[in-house]
């Protein structure tokens, strides 16, 4: 079958070339259309539901808003988990879906259920809405509005942002949302003097009603006039403060009492839960552009940029948009890192080819496999919707060296056969035979490489999303190289390579000079080992022992931190902090940061702006640090050095926790929302107080289990509340209803929106509340008067007890239940036994009330799942590899010999990591997997030839030595091409190189030992594993071929 296909391709060379060109052309076309991202998107597949209810405490948010939404979301198909946070004024429900579920379908079903939830939420408690159709990578551009004239107020700037900049930016295709923050949202304020209410004997409610009923337009169909129709409309909308002032509240003896008699009327700022500061001096208005899910980052960003240019032109004189964070920089840097590695890899591989092939023509044929395989992979990437990013292109860069392997073997054999061929033999015939010989082994070898990457396909979660693209592209590129090696290489060989008699090198079986040089020392060495096999065995065992000893010395980490090139200083302040204090503190830190000469600007976001991307409370600030050009730095560069400078300069900021993070890292962490510690104990239950007490108990117990470290209880309380508890007896005496009291509390203190004022299409709320000095202190609130039906005016504190308490700062729920979590790391023992011991201790000494439940989670759970999965997948993969090997060699012994390469390759990888001071990590593991494939391939190349020699009747020992020497070239070539292909990744310092480096280190290090051992140990061991030279094995061979 395979042979016939190869025959066919050789017989239709023109067709083959046309198809090849078509594939490459299509690949290039796909390349131009490929979405480009910085990293693979690791955000979970989730739909967020936000509900803003201004002024409501976490408990009420949970009760009235979060619970109905959550309840509506249960039982949806594909839902993995529903988690919610009820904050002050904001409810966020995260509905996590299985990764395989289409996001638009997920949103659709969530949307349907939201309809139900809306009916359950009491009137006036907010309207749940879905977050933007985006992911953690969606925040592509942040900008602020720079007012160079200094004439515009923060209110005007915010109006420019909301009604001009945002409006235009939202029309850019691929932009799903533009979120404004900072400055003041304009509002019309009607601030009522409570004593005027007394004087004129009106209630707050009446005022609000009057405002509402004096602000509307109506339509009244049309009238006919002289055969024409006139549309009737009546305009009664208030157009500004003047109209509001002249609203008549009541008329006493013909004397109208105007709203202006009761209240101060003017424009003011809406209540805000976040702001943006800059350089420690002032506030700015800024915006965040959110990219639509699945769109091409680079095109969206460039479209946004050109739109910004346009908007800049129509902005008022002196105001301009200044981007301060652009994902474009990161995308470009990441793609540059891998494309550089890719190109350098190609050049290095080509050089190696030239040296080893000993001729330009065969080198060209082999080198042609690179563009073909890469473009073939790109074509498939486009088909399967993979974006070009650090990992997917990184996969190509890793595969560079391996892509040529198949073709090298093919061309090498063609080359050899052409030289041996007689003058009168048909060239095509010779080539066809040569290809037929190696076609099968190549098919098996490359299949094995693809196969060893299969375990990576099964990775889940963040690692899965990070490394699966890499595995996919490696597999695709290898598939491309297989197609090239089997069907295109013969054709190109026939066209480009000369027959033996024309070859300058002349002599039959002549090797290039470098190979001959290498063979001089190699032959005696391999001879030595073949004669003293036990020495080889001891050597191999010794190496294994060395490797095994080094493994525990290696540090480990999950995934090396990707350097995004942008530093974010994250401040966490006391949960009870006020916005103004939070701003003051942030400015102090900004000023400290600006004392570092390398830092040019600092722009900070405190709390949240328009809901959609961030849900941070006001005690958290994120400071974007803009650096001066690298040439002005005092230090030699690198993000880490700058981070050290920042840590040093900031020192300990009193009352503030400082963390350094990066934009995407931060956003993704927020979405994952999982606990970052290894272990999390979650206590589920109803009563927050009980939960907190039990959490403290559990934490104390867990802390005493040997191996526990960093035990920390999730801080759920800490927000001071002024709690008004209505005294039912007191209100009964006056005949007042609870809602009458609460309505006054809500409107007088919190404020109530009584309609909008339209300025063109711009809409601004009209907010009615008391004047600030009648509501801003607890004392003022005590004095708010409530009118009883009998006419009595009663101060609030006669109807309600007023106390200051510490309330919850947020309420977290999972699977419809409140929980408090305790985080913990485990040091020096394995987590499984730790959990068992801690669980026993908890069972013994913590007496949980009925309905309370302890569960264990955290990273370790994911790890256990991953381990369980790998424990099945890895052996199954090895079994398949073995089957493939068996299929190729028809011998269990041979297959085992080749599998021997795996542990020996591991040693080199481990040593490589150790020498370069790197840690065991997921990318290192991926490197090991790639290494297996390459090591197996090396082994196959050698063993195949040894078998062939044996079949030709060469004695065992002699075959081992001779075969090893003759196969020195292909083995060295495949190994060096692979290693050199990875060199650029090894030495690159570009963005994202830190993820690729451990991988490259492992492969290069592993290749070193594995090649050495392939060349020395396999020939030595071969006699043990060789198929017995005898009648029966000969028949096996013949049957097979």
């Amino acid at each position: 079958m395979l042979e016939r296909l190869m025959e066919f391709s050789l017989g239709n060379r023109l067709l083959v070339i046309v198809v090849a060109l078509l594939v490459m052309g299509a690949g290039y076309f796909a390349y131009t259309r490929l979405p480009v991202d910085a990293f693979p998107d690791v955000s979970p597949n989730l739909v967020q539901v936000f509900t803003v209810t201004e002024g409501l405490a976490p408990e009420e948010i949970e009760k009235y808003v979060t619970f109905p939404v959550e309840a509506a979301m249960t039982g949806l198909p594909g839902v993995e988990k529903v988690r919610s946070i009820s904050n002050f004024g904001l409810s966020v429900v995260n509905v996590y879906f299985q990764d395989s579920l289409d996001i638009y379908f997920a949103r659709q079903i969530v949307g349907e259920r939201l309809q139900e939830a809306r009916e359950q939420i009491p009137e006036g408690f907010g309207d749940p809405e879905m977050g933007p159709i985006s992911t953690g990578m969606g925040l592509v551009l942040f900008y602020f509005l720079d007012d160079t004239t200094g004439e515009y107020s923060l209110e005007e700037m915010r109006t420019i942002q909301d009604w001009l900049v945002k409006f235009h930016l939202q029309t850019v295709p691929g932009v799903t949302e533009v979120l404004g923050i900072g400055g003041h949202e304009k509002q019309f304020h009607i601030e009522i003097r409570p004593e005027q209410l007394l004087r004129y004997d009106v209630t707050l409610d009446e005022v609000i009603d009057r405002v509402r009923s004096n602000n509307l337009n109506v339509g009244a169909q049309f009238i006919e006039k002289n055969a024409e129709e006139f549309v009737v409309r009546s305009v009664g909308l208030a157009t500004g403060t003047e109209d509001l002032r002249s609203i008549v509240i009541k008329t006493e003896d013909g004397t109208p009492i105007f709203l202006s008699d009761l209240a101060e009327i003017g424009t003011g700022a809406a209540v805000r839960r976040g702001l943006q500061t800059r350089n420690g001096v002032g506030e700015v208005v800024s915006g965040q552009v959110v990219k639509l899910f699945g769109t091409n980052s680079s095109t969206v960003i460039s479209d946004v940029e050109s739109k910004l240019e346009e908007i800049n032109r129509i902005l008022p004189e002196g105001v301009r948009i200044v981007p301060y964070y652009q994902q474009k920089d990161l995308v470009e840097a990441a793609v540059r890192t891998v494309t550089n590695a890719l190109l350098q890899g190609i050049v290095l591989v080509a050089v190696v080819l030239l040296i080893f092939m000993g001729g330009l023509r065969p080198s060209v044929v082999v080198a042609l496999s690179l563009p073909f395989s890469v473009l073939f992979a790109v074509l498939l990437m486009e088909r399967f919707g993979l974006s070009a990013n650090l990992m997917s292109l990184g996969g190509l860069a890793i595969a560079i060296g391996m892509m040529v392997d198949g073709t090298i073997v093919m061309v090498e054999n063609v080359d050899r056969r052409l030289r041996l061929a007689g003058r009168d033999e048909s060239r095509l015939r010779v080539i066809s035979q040569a290809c037929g010989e190696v076609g099968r082994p190549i098919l098996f070898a490359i299949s094995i490489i693809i196969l060893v990457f299969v375990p990576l396909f099964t990775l889940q979660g963040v690692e899965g999303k990070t490394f699966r693209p890499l595995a996919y592209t490696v597999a695709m590129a290898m598939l491309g190289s297989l197609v090239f090696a089997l069907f295109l290489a013969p054709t190109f060989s026939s066209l480009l390579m000369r027959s033996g008699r024309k070859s300058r090198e002349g002599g039959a079986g002549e090797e290039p000079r470098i190979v001959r040089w290498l063979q001089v020392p190699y032959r005696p060495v391999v001879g030595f080992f073949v004669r003293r096999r036990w020495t080889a065995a001891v050597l191999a065992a010794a190496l294994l022992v060395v490797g095994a000893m080094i493994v525990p010395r290696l540090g480990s980490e999950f995934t090396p931190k990707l350097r995004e090139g942008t530093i974010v200083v994250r401040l966490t302040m006391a949960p009870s902090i006020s916005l103004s204090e939070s701003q003051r503190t942030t400015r102090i830190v900004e000023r400290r940061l600006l004392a570092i000469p390398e830092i040019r600007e600092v722009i900070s976001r405190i709390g949240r702006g328009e809901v959609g991307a961030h849900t941070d409370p006001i005690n958290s600030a994120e400071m974007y640090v803009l650096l001066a050009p690298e040439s002005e730095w005092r230090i030699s560069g690198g993000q880490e050095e700058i981070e050290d400078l920042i840590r040093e300069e900031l020192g300990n900021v009193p009352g503030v926790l400082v963390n350094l993070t990066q934009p995407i890292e931060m956003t993704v962490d927020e979405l994952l929302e999982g606990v970052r510690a290894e272990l999390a104990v979650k206590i589920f239950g109803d009563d927050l107080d009980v939960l907190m007490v039990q959490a403290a108990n559990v934490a104390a117990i867990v802390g005493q289990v040997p191996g526990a470290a960093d035990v920390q209880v999730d801080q759920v309380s800490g927000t001071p509340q002024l709690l008004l508890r209505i005294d039912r007896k007191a209100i009964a005496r006056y005949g007042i209803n609870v809602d009458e009291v609460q309505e006054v509390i809500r409107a007088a203190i919190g404020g109530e929106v009584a309609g909008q004022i339209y300025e063109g299409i711009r809409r601004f709320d009209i907010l009615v509340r008391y004047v600030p000095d009648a509501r801003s202190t607890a004392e003022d609130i005590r004095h708010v008067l409530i009118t009883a039906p009998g006419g009595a005016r009663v101060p609030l504190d006669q109807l309600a007890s007023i106390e200051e308490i510490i309330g919850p700062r947020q309420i977290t729920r999972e699977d419809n239940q409140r929980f408090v979590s305790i985080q913990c790391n485990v040091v020096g023992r394995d987590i499984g036994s730790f959990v068992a011991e801690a669980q026993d201790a908890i069972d013994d000494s913590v007496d949980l009330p009925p309905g309370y439940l302890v569960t264990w989670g955290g990273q370790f759970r994911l790890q256990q799942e991953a381990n369980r999965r790998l424990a099945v997948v890895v052996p199954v993969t090895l079994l398949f590899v073995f089957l493939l090997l068996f299929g190729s060699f028809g011998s269990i012994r041979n297959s085992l010999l080749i599998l021997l390469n795996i542990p020996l390759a591991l040693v080199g990888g481990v040593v490589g990591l150790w020498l370069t001071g790197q840690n065991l990590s997921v990318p290192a593991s991926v490197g090991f997997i790639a290494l297996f494939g390459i090591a197996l391939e090396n082994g196959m190349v050698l063993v195949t030839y040894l078998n062939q020699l044996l079949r030709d009747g060469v004695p065992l020992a002699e075959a081992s030595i001779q075969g090893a020497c003759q196969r020195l070239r292909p083995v060295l070539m495949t190994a060096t091409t692979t290693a050199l292909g990875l060199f650029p990744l090894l030495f690159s310092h570009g963005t994202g190189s830190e993820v690729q480096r451990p991988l490259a280190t492992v492969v290069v290090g592993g290749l070193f030992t594995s090649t050495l051992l392939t060349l020395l140990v396999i020939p030595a061991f071969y006699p043990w594993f060789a198929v017995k030279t005898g009648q029966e094995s000969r028949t096996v061979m013949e049957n097979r071929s």
Partner: protein
Amino acid sequence: MKNSSIRFQLNCKLFELLIMTVAFLAILAHPVLAQEGDDDHDGHGHGEEQKDWVRLDQDEMREFGVVVSEAGSAVLEQTLELPGEIRADDNALAHIVPRFSGIVTEVRAQVGDRVVARDILAVIESDESLSPYEMKTLISGTVIDKHITLGEAVSREHAGFIIADLSNVWADITVYQRDLTRVSDGQRVTIDGGDHLPGASGRISYVAPIVNEKTRTALARVVLPNDSGVWRPGTFITAQVVVDRLDVPVAVPRTALQMFQGHDVVFVQTDEGFAPRPVVVGRADRNHLEIVSGLAPGEFYVSQGGFTLKAELGKESFGGGHDH
């Protein structure tokens, strides 16, 4: 030879097994090992020993606005803010009625006119005697109301003029039930009429012995001198009643008190640094709090910026679960 080769094979099998096991373990071990290096714990490292004081240098104190003061005595003025209304003094009010019914033949006074006792306000022709007689004011004051028109038939049932002496007015203050025990005669009151009226002060001259059945409030009265006439009856006012004036040995500004771990504390300067000191708060006025125990006179305490210190002490705990 045969034998040894079998033994070799056996050894090889064992060897393979060993190697394969190592390989498996290595593969499986990575993810397990990989999770240990969670270096995300900046900021928790120094939290091992729970410290109970904060040290700040001068620069930091200035930067964060931390102000230190010496504890000492203060006078607390406890006040109540109550609504009220300006009324004319009942004792200086005169209703002038026609002595006999008759027809008004002359009106000499208008609302707002100032009159002196015995001034003629109007002339009425009596129905009985058909002779004119004069209506005279009984007191000096201002005409605040007039129900009499030329030619009108008037009778003694209706007051023709109301004359008030507005040189003194009453500020009638509404006292709510809960404040009744604290308000008494002689307390000083500051009156604010808002709307650009000048403030005034006086003392409570009278507290009503009964509570109004409808409004459930009692009345306290301040007599205000009103020579300039700015206090017009009917004006709404706000009264600050000083219900108590206390000399306390130790008082701190309200900004000094912080709630820390469920207790009221004041940050006190000690040799180590600033330490939270639980205090018992006594009486208070708008700006100051009496410290009954916990702070001795002469001690230095943080009067402003205590929040920064409290936040620094509580810092270990606010990393929480979700903020990494």
